């Protein structure tokens, strides 16, 4: 047995304060307070990694993760998704010509139609996305090239945009609205979808262009200058359109004052820059019509593209995606697979550790602490 520590009696016993000589009264005792904190005796829980806690934890995590993973995987697999690359890289691609000839400066729109076949009907609401690859919307110089005050309808910023917008701040000595590189590079392809009846007639599929942006963006972050003044032409007077744009910001959707100017939803969606160089952005929604017919029945379709947006220069790609969604969002099998993998690894590790514990567990017997 080891020698125990010295435990002098007086050390914790309270001694009355020494009385000062000559009746000076009680001298304040310097004995430290006896509080749990000061004496470092705070009640505490001291968890230890023992077999009793670690092994069950591993098994439990395994048992929870695997079902979640399977659920996620199945959900993701049930999502219907169709992706069409219409960049026009191949000679065979219908948009090849457009992609070759196009630059920002051309005035004549280039049209191309991409036929595709849907071998499975899309039952629920269908979301139509455009996707860009190798497009660095997250580049620092790009990301900061905007003026949120201007987009929020601030009059002062409208006429004198933030310096961050350089070099897309002014054009012809007039302030650009909306300024900056993000706005300047607004995606301006027009995508239309037609269903080809078996009899050969084309039916345009109604594409809803509202409700594609975040509510907060649409109602708080983006506001037209001039508040409820619907005459945007007047409001934006004295500003210039972004150099790459064909039309001014107040002409984005002249038909709907609620979707025009800065609060145009296509514009808002674009302005929410992507985190990664490959991204997709919501373009249109195809609402489910009735309960009886699928939103997009099986069959032949044509995607009509007004090909404006140049991506070939930087080896970018453009895609059109049709997708249904689930409770966990769009199609992404990764989470499901990851959960299944991690769950299995956990379970497996649990077993391995259990074996090791059985084999060597007795080593950690406290009796053999050298004294």
């Amino acid at each position: 047995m080891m020698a125990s520590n010295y435990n002098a009696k007086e050390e914790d016993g309270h001694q009355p304060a020494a009385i000062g000589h000559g009746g000076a009264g009680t001298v304040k005792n310097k004995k430290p307070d006896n509080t749990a904190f000061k004496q470092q005796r705070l009640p505490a829980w001291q968890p230890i990694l023992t077999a009793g806690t670690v092994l069950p934890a591993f098994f439990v995590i395994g048992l929870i993760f695997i079902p979640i993973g399977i659920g996620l995987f199945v959900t993701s697999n049930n999502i219907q998704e169709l992706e069409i690359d219409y960049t026009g890289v191949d000679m065979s691609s219908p948009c090849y010509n457009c992609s070759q000839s196009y630059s920002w400066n051309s005035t004549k729109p280039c049209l191309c139609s991409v036929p595709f076949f849907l071998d499975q009907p899309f039952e629920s609401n269908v979301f139509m996305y455009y996707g860009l690859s190798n497009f660095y919307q997250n580049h620092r110089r790009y990301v900061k090239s905007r003026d949120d005050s201007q987009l929020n309808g601030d009059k002062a910023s409208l006429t004198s945009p933030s310096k961050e917008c350089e070099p897309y701040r002014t054009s012809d000595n007039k302030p650009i609205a909306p300024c900056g590189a993000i706005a300047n590079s607004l995606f301006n392809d027009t995508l239309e979808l037609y269903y080809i009846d078996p009899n050969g007639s084309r039916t345009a599929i109604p594409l809803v262009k509202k409700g594609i942006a975040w509510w907060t963006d649409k109602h708080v972050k983006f506001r037209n200058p001039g508040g409820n003044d619907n005459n945007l032409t007047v409001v934006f007077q004295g500003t210039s359109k972004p150099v790459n744009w064909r039309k001014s910001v107040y002409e984005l959707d002249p038909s709907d004052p609620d979707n025009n100017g800065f609060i145009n939803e296509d514009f808002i969606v674009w302005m929410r820059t992507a985190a990664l160089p490959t991204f997709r952005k919501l373009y249109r929604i195809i609402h489910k019509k009735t309960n009886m017919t699928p939103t997009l029945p099986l069959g032949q379709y044509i995607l009509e593209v007004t090909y404006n947006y140049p991506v070939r220069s930087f080896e970018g790609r453009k895609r059109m995606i049709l997708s249904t969604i689930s409770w966990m969002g769009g199609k992404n099998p990764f989470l499901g697979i990851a959960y299944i993998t991690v769950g299995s690894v956990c379970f497996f590790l649990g077993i391995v550790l259990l074996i090791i514990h059985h084999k060597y567990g007795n080593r950690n017997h406290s009796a053999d602490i050298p004294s």
Partner: protein
Amino acid sequence: SLNYVVFPPTEKERHLRANDRELNLSYKYADNAIKTSKYNIFTFLPLNLFEQFQRLANAYFLFLLCLQSIPEVSSLPWYTTVVPLVLVLSMTMAKDSSDDMNRHRCDKQVNNRKVEILIGGELQSEKWMDVQVGDIIKLENNQFVTVRMEVIKVSAEGDKVKGETNLKVKQALTVTGKLEDSIEKLANFNGEVRCEPPNNRLDKFTGTLTLNGETYSLDNERILLRGCTLRNTQWCFGLVVFGGPDTKLMQNCGRTTFKRTSIDRLMNVLVLNIFGFLMIMCLILAIGNGIWEYQEGSKFAAFLPKGVNAPFSAFLTFWSYVIILNTVVPISLYISVEIIRLGNSFYINWDRKMYYPKSDTPAEARTTTLNEELGQIKYIFSDKTGTLTQNIMTFNKCSINGKSYGELLDFSGQRVEINEKTEKVDFSWNNLADPKFCFHDNSLVEEVREGNPEVQAFFRLLALCHTVMPEEKKEGELYYQAQSPDEGALVTAARNFGFVFRSRTPERITVVEMGELVTYELLAVLDFNNVRKRMSVIVRSPEGKLTLYCKGADTIIFERLNPSCSNLTEVTTEHLNEFAGEGLRTLALAYKDIDPEYMEDWKLRHHEANTAMDEREEKLDALYEEIEKGLQLLGSTAVEDKLQDGVPQTIEQLSKADIKIWVLTGDKQETAENIGYSCNMLRDEMNEVFIVSANTAEEVRKELQTARRKMTPDGTEEPTVKKSRSGLFCLLKTETVADEPVNGEYAMVINGHSLAFALEKDMEMELLRTACMCQTVICCRVTPLQKAQVVELVKKYKQAVTLAVGDGANDVSMIKAAHIGVGISGQEGMQAVLSSDYSFAQFRYLQRLLLVHGRWSYLRMCKFLRYFFYKNFTFTFVHFWYGFFCGFSAQTVYDEWFITLYNLVYTALPVLSLSLLDQDVNDWWSFQYPQLYTPGQLNQYFSKRAFVYTVLHSGYSSLVLFFIPWAAMYDTVRDDGKEIVDYQSFALLAQTCLLIAVSIQLGLDTHYWTAVNQFFLWGSLSVYFAVIFTMYSNGMFLTLISSFPFIGTARNSLNQPNVWLTMLLTSILCVLPVVAYRFLRILLWPTINDKVRGRGSTHLSLVRQDKVLPPAPRRVQARRTSTRRSGYAFSHAQGYGDLVTSGKFLRRTPKSRPALFSQTDSPLAQTQPQSYRTISEWEEPPLSP
């Protein structure tokens, strides 16, 4: 060289004239105002800022701030740097200003004390600060001195100054002494003083006084030092020689070296490496940017604003990344470290188990920057007197006329253990007895009261033969002032046994013998010195009988005994051996009746010798030798040099913790050895105790070598020295002598003389090797400088952390030299405490300081550093990975506000609570298993290796934290089809994952979960969520549009199930491998900590229920039958003999001193057992360094 600051000799010689302010002022000597403060109101801000920016980290952040002001480079808004910087600066500023305010207050208090100065022919009460060099000031009894004065005139009643240790005699020159207290004479006094310039040597002073054309020499005996207290004199006039900062105390005040801990040094090296690492990361990213600009950026020009050319862009990017990745060298690191140390220092101050109620002294951490080093001590250098021992002597045993007293036997004749409960002898029959005196053997009292002549003679001798000064405050209340505590103990013993030494004049000694007043005529005092090792007095009893009483070292006395007492000598020797075996300090007592005629003759010759101009000492010695012959042995005394409570246990505990304890003492070899045995440092079962006490260098070397070869017969002759480089830029060359294995236990005792040789350059290695092989090393008769040299030697070649503990002025050098100095605030003044880093009242608290506080501090600091680096590296690496996905454009992954607040708000408090509250095992287990201390000595918890592991761990975590969200979010959308992979949502996801992951990691690292930890951890997480919801709210956005662009992100992201599933996944993936690894480690390679923790948890309930431990009732006073001779009980160098016989000393009668010890007697003195005084208090409030 190491313990004294060398001040530039600006002043060659000091010259001043009394009462001549004009002349003295012309020299521009420092006045007496003390200024320890650094700032005043106006200089505070600029000076403090200037100082703060001299720190590397702060300067670095200033540099970052400059970088951020360049728009091309700025990758983060200004507030990410400014907020932390301002916070850190203001915290440091607050601390500095409060420190300085304290100093101001101290200064003020000291400066505004009143003193009487002789100005214009009369005494005026002035403030201390107005005292000028050359002034004549008046001091009164018990006042303390705040200038350094030369005593030029004192009352003719000799004075003593209670100074650093014991009372010291200070006397005025005869010529100035004649001035007495005549104000007129003093005012006309115009002596000129020339003396040495200010220095810090307390024991030396040289100068001259020129008065009326004659020159008198001034030495240390004429000088009163600042900080002393005047005793035993009513008043004293003095001439001020040095003022304020020039005084010796102030010159000694400064901490000579700034101590840093090894963790500090390691941290600096690491920070430097981190800078290098940072540069490499930035370089990689910059090159990446160059390539990207070249390959992609140029073609991307239609979308991105003006592209610059690739190399220039890379250059700019480099600096942008320097800004972004700055979090690897977090500014909050240093301030957090300081806070942690401060907190742990407070714990030391607060610890009740280190509070000593008898003197009302709590432990004090005087330095707040060394705490974790307390957990890494490898060598302890301890003083003996006052540190291991109480410096209180108690009269324990005696042998009178062949009979031994003091032992307590029970009915069967067995020795009875004496402890506090043992019944004490009742001295109530003696109304002059000292109530604090304890004795347990009743038989001695009976013998005295029965009138046994030998016993009475024995105590008569003790009452007469000494140089103790009595003080009688009130009738019957006696206080003895002895120069050595041994003497005090002996006189007190005599007092209690009925031979009360009452008063003395130069010619008479008055003793109350068994209630009867007897006055002896004192004919001569044959004083003690180191060579004689004895002292004698010759007295004439009232009956006219002449007797010489002598006490001294047994060997010396026995040589001078009358052959008739050979039988008695034998028995007494036996007793002496017995006493010595118990570690008692012994003296032999003898007497001799003297023929009056012979005495006459002898006295004449004595007077002649005494007045002889040359060879006085020799002549006197011869005379003494002549008369101290043919003595009759009376017996012997045994005085216990009482060990402090718990010293052997503490030493045992510390040596179990693998700490080596060396005792460095000024004591004699025998005394030191005895204490070694009674502290259990030397044991009879040791293989051998080497004693090195040679007189030449060669002999010393030989003895050391012999000892070493004995310990390792097959060891190498040449020491294995590992040379390495360390420190910043590897500039520091270090040599480490490896520990050598030894079979068996050895100890070494080396005396100062040999040590002087052994510490020479060519032999120090030999000494070190031999000494380090020994379990115990005792160095005796060492000088303060040697103490420091020994410490330096170990520091130099062992690269181990050293601690020096001592209580006296002679320990100051070693306290300053060691990594950590501990002062025992005991009875020997405050010098040691003032220069120490930690102080407390009892040696035994050392084990708590090291095994509990030190261990915890070290553990906490290491945990803190590991965790801190982990969380910041993880934070930063994610940026690094993101660089590959954003064209290396220095885009941040997180919201800028998150970057600003991460270290300061979200993670600050949890990590602080971890590093202030964590305990792996509680103090009880720390004591149970001192081995828990060893990881600290081996630097196991935080080293370069541990740092590399931390970096790798962060690398893994950051990979998980970036790529899991990346993959989980790739090309996906919200559950309403809208966007979720936009930059802002991704940033939110990444930062939330990070925060949760580091919080869980914190939880894993926490061993001691208190409510505070929980509160801070959960509180910080809640604060995080509260902050993001606030900052991303409509209101914030609309008030400051450009600062809060993340509007709505929290609402829109955190309602998505896949976001939460991603967070869960990243957290589990971050934690899982760590848990598995730790579990396996505990399972397969458990450390001592794991075992104790495991054990602690299973036994916890048991321990908590009944706190009774098997106490250690072991008085390790095993009876030794060794024949070692004890040290004799004289510990002072030279007696008071001169003073006693010189007329000067005691002219006053006790009655004429009305209020001698009225105000300043502290309670401390009252609690002292026995009433002679050797205690002194440093009454000046310690000046803040």
